[in-house]
């Protein structure tokens, strides 16, 4: 099989006590892997395990211990990857009352966040609709997780920013309670916030300016053109400097006892013909936008990292008709490399699509927590 020099794929996944699974070991194709089975058999949990090994957390449940098999005390995920022809083993262990451990080639990370970015991943799931329907926090978390996968410094600055923000908010509460307000304290917190916040703002700006054209292409491809859809990064820092913003908000902050302005209030607006797609777009348009956004992210990370992220397509037929899915899989399979994982309720539908493409693949059928290759 022909392999591009900068390739990355998951060769083997070992699962112990993760969600509905007790013990499973799966071998994968470096290109296309499918999981077929009825609803509720745990197809998505396999994708989530792969997501876990890349981003150190579940795509669906932020509480680590809630991903442990209900009858067990811990779970272990082990991914055996091949990066540029070199073996990379990633270990993730979560134990009740003992927290989370991440190891790369048997060596534990000092900070778990150091692992993020080693194996970029993009998940497309029906749960994505939260990005449109949910609060701005969902969208910020999304933006941050994408940028963190190619920019380590960004993640460090973000962690620092959130830490200072928490201290500032605690101080505002403390000052309100004691009635003593020390401007020196606020001055210090502001200085630290501005330093990290301006960097984060700049990086988010760069990210959107580069993502937009790729997104437009994908949206046009998926929708057949003609619709005007726009992504827009919104931040108060477009209007005034962070220093001015904080200075103008301090009286309000004192009353409300938290920091009311800053990059932690940024948002991503998604519009169709200049109106919010949340209220003015059809379900189909919303789905198309989300898939286009995720595929743009996929392409974007590839541009920066020179490797294709692992693509996880969860229940993709729920979002798009068969023709579109066929198009997506065709586009991705025409790339020189790049590994995909797909879940579907109909094994024959997937088999049919794959039969037309000359690309290495593996199809698993899941029933009663057992995997059979078909």
């Amino acid at each position: 099989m022909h392999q591009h020099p900068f390739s990355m794929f998951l060769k083997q996944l070992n699962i112990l006590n993760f969600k509905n699974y007790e013990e499973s070991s799966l071998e994968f194709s470096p290109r296309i892997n499918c999981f077929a089975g009825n609803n509720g058999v745990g197809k998505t949990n396999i994708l989530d395990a792969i997501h876990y090994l890349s981003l150190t957390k579940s795509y669906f449940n932020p509480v680590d211990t809630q991903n442990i098999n209900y009858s067990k005390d811990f779970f272990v995920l082990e991914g055996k990857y091949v990066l540029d022809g070199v073996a990379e083993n990633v270990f993730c262990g979560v134990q009740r009352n003992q927290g989370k451990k991440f190891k790369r080639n048997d060596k534990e990370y000092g900070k778990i966040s150091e692992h993020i970015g080693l194996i970029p991943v993009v998940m497309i799931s029906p749960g994505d609709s939260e990005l449109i329907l949910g609060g701005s926090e969902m969208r910020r978390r999304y933006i941050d997780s994408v940028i963190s996968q190619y920019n380590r410094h960004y993640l460090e600055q973000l962690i620092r920013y959130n830490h200072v923000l928490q201290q500032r908010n605690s101080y505002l509460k403390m000052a309100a309670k004691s009635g003593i307000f020390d401007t020196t304290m606020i001055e210090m917190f502001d200085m630290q916030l501005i330093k990290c916040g301006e960097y984060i703002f700049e990086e988010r700006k760069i990210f959107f300016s580069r993502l937009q054209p790729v997104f437009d292409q994908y949206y046009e491809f998926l929708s057949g053109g003609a619709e005007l859809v726009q992504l827009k990064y919104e931040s108060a820092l477009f209007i005034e400097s962070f220093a001015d913003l904080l200075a103008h908000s301090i009286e309000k902050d004192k009353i409300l006892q938290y920091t009311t302005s800053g990059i932690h209030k940024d948002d991503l607006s998604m519009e169709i013909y200049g109106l919010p797609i949340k209220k003015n777009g059809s379900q189909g348009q919303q789905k198309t936008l989300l898939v286009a956004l995720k595929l743009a992210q996929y392409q974007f990370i590839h541009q920066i990292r020179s490797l294709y992220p692992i693509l996880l397509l969860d229940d993709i037929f729920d979002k798009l008709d068969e023709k579109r899915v066929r198009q997506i899989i065709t586009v991705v399979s025409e790339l020189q490399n790049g590994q995909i994982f797909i879940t579907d309720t109909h094994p024959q539908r997937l088999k049919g699509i794959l039969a037309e493409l000359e690309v290495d693949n593996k199809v698993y059928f899941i029933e009663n927590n057992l995997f059979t290759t078909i």
Partner: protein
Amino acid sequence: MINISSKLVRDAVQELAKLPGIGAKTALRLVLHLLRQDVDTSVMLGNAIVSMRTNIKFCIKCHNIADGDYCHICTNPQRDGSTICIVENIKDVMVIENTGQFKGLYHVLGGIISPMDGIGPSHLNLDNIEKRIVENNVKEVIFALPTTIEGDTTSFYIFKKLKPLNLNITTLARGVAIGDDLEYTDEITLGRSLVNRVMYSV
């Protein structure tokens, strides 16, 4: 946990197990060890702990531990009273003393500013610091505080307070882990960063 029939032994185990780094198993092992020794061993240990805790004082000047009103560093005429090193806690004093590179005096804050943990500036030993500097004609203040957000906040806070006093304010050369990590930094590196300290700048 093993069922201990003696209430006396059980109480001793329970008290020891409250100490950091000591679990119930270790506590039991220590108690059983003491039982094998003379009565005197336990009496001496108990007395030393009681006497330490009830008689210990904190230096009026620098807030370091002291046997009297002033600590052994503040009362040592060989020390240079024109330089004060600001540290978070008593352990930091011990670690810096160990380097043998510092001949000045200390000022122990007894904490670090962290509103998240309920610690604001008023919780630190800062009331007497300006008076101390002016009355003793202090020329230089060195920050030896953690290189964390909380350490930075504390340094800046004290810097603003001391700025009008017109003295040299310096800080340890960056890259040296201090605070929680201080004990892991080797003496030579820490000593060198004290000697090569830099002017504090925001």
